[in-house]
């Protein structure tokens, strides 16, 4: 996804702040711009401000400071019903006293659309989510997954250019959730709509999005495509929040040729890529993904530092093996290896040498 300049952004937040009580800021200085057609996910722990941002975009909350732009126009003072933004809610919010068809027809009715046109659009939207035969039912007669589809169809039926989704898959079971993830992304891309999706589920964020904005403490910590986010986290919060990570504390000893030599707290030395450390002597948190840890010394660079590790636990998980090690005084070091014919299966009690490529290990803020 090319980074877009502010002037041709479809949705933009400019220095937006939000406070509910006048004492603490829930959203602190938010800047964000989205091109048309992008699927952006706001990811973060609860209380990180992501839902507040979505509500400000939808118009249900007012920004305390800053500007929100939609297609170049400030929408701060436009009431929600004039924004023309489709929205899918966490609990679907299907009107229980209306049939499915009436639910879908509602946004068209308030737009004073003719009856035949309405019926045609409703049917098309229902067919789009493969629920064509359910128009006469009531929401309570549908399963969770079906209600989810209807909520989606209802948010799309009036053809908005921007659709907001607030944890729409939170109430579904795992299998259905995975199926719906693909359906939603397919639909969004096929229709070319711009989507802002809020979730606290990182897998969902990684599989669905063009870009993910990681929220914490009222700020966007990092906004990048999923692969960049996973492989190049810009700080230790992102590194820990996205995927599994082994972290070790240490001090930067030397920075040379883009490689930082870090002395861990137990004295051992390792190589890492400096991300947000710049000075020798600075404390740092180094982070390495469990699947990037290497047992095979031949694959490491000649002069790479290695660490001694004691195997504590070996878990067979089917497609992968998960090995828990004691490394540099920590019992929580995890290594994941692929279940391949030539893969070594470590036994508890064994001692091994582990290492990694310096570019896989990142020295982040402490």
């Amino acid at each position, binding site marked *: 996804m090319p980074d877009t300049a502010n002037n041709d952004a479809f949705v933009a937040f400019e220095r937006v702040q939000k406070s509910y009580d006048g004492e603490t800021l829930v959203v602190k200085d938010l800047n964000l711009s989205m091109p048309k057609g992008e699927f952006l996910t706001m990811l973060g722990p609860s209380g990180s401000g992501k839902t507040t941002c979505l509500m400000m975009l939808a118009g249900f909350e007012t920004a305390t400071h800053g500007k929100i732009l939609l297609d170049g126009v400030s929408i701060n003072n436009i009431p929600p*019903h*004039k924004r023309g933004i489709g*929205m899918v809610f*966490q609990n679907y*919010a299907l*009107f229980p006293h209306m049939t499915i068809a009436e639910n879908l027809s*509602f*946004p068209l009715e*308030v737009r004073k659309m003719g009856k035949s046109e309405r019926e045609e659009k409703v049917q098309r939207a229902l067919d789009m989510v493969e629920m064509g035969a359910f128009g006469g039912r009531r929401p309570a007669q549908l399963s969770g997954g079906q209600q989810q589809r209807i909520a989606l169809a209802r*948010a799309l039926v009036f053809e908005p250019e921007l659709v907001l989704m607030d944890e729409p898959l939170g109430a579904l079971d795992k299998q259905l959730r995975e199926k719906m993830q693909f359906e939603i992304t397919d639909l969004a891309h096929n229709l070319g709509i711009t989507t802002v999706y809020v979730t606290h589920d990182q897998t969902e964020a990684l599989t669905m999005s063009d870009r993910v904005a990681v929220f914490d403490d009222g700020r966007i910590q990092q906004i990048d495509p999923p692969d960049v986010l996973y492989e190049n986290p810009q700080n230790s919060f992102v590194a820990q929040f996205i995927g599994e990570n082994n972290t070790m504390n240490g001090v930067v000893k030397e920075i040379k040729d883009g490689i930082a030599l870090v002395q861990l707290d137990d004295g051992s030395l390792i190589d890492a890529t400096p991300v947000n450390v710049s000075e020798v002597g600075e404390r740092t948190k180094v982070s390495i993904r469990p699947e990037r840890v290497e047992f095979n010394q031949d694959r490491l660079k000649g002069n790479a530092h290695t660490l001694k590790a004691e195997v504590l636990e070996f878990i067979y998980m089917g497609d992968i093996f998960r090995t828990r090690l004691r490394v540099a005084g920590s019992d929580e070091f995890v290594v994941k290896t692929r279940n391949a014919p030539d893969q070594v299966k470590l036994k508890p009690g064994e001692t091994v040498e582990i290492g990694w490529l310096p570019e896989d290990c990142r020295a982040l803020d402490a």
Partner: protein
Amino acid sequence: MSDTTDSGPITAADGTPLKRSLGRALRQQKLRALMLIAPLLLFVLLSFILPIANMLMRSVDNDIVADTLPLTVVELKTWDSDSGELPGENVYAAFVTDMVAAIDAKNHTKLGTRLNYESTGMSSMFRQSGRKMKKLDPVADAPFKEKLIKINDGWGDVEAWREIKTHSVRTTNGYFLNAVDMRRTPEGAQSQPEDKRILIKLFGRTLWMSLIITGSCILLAYPIAWILANLPMRTSNMLMILVLLPFWTSLLVRTSAWKVLLQQQGVINEILVWLGLIADDGRLVMINNQTGTIIAMTHILLPFMILPMYSVMQTIQPTYLRAAKSMGATNWTAFWRVYFPQSIPGIGAGSILVFILAIGYYITPEIVGGTKGVFISNRIAYHISSSLNWGLAAALGAILLAVVLLLYWCYDKIVGIDNVKLG
């Protein structure tokens, strides 16, 4: 494999039919449940169902004439009441025999009271005749026709005998006819004279005013319930106490307070006069009339409307309104098309509650209603405690009960009783 097959009933492991064995297993549970509710069941039976059944019986029960004047009733059967002539000597003779026995048992005044409900003057006629007829001997003093007419010329009036004959049946529709401003005559049911027709008007007024009270309760309660349901828990709990506060105050005190407020020398009038909004000689009459009853009862019944509305509105999630607005609905459309329909069960529950309570209300109309603002229940109370015409009171009560049940049925047909939610 189990021994269940497609043919025949399914059996349990020991061969007994599954249904029976399930029934046995559940019997103990049912017995225990029954034991638990037994005290209440007994209490309700003795203190609610039996008295009501007894009261309903009284509305048609009319043994007193046939029991007190058994021979007379038999003899009157042969008398043609439409002939315009007095009954024959046989009736008078039987009447004297019956009366002497009744006077001995001191029953004749009760009979007089009973017949007095139908035709004024009967009570004094029986009491007065009783004193003199005591001396008559049913055998030796015959014939009686002339003597009786001499004792009280009422006995020479065809109407008196017609009255006795008409009301000699053991089960009568007379009380119900009276309750709807009609009366039982030898020629069948007929309307009461114009000046005696008050009950239908009273029924109509009771229904009409109950409707107005229910309506004003809806109007006042809806916004309050909405606020309560949408405020944060802590604030709404505090406001809820204010709503419930009237419940902790005696009904009598609250009604009397309205008397203080509403009367012509009362607080509201004084303030309006002081402000110069009304002239001192033009004080508003807000009490001892319908206005007083409506104001006081609306206030007293308001919590019964707020509570069901509140509990229903609490279950309506705010996301519904947000969803509607996100789809382009204005505040009003979102409310009217999405919120209001979902709050109807609360309105329904509150309305039924308030209307049924209002229709049978007694204390408040009695105190603030004057003569124009009283309800049918005040009339029932009058017949129970003052006129002692329990039969008529029972008939009025039965009609009131029937009206409530009928309205309940209508409500079920129109709105559906499943749509009523108390929480």
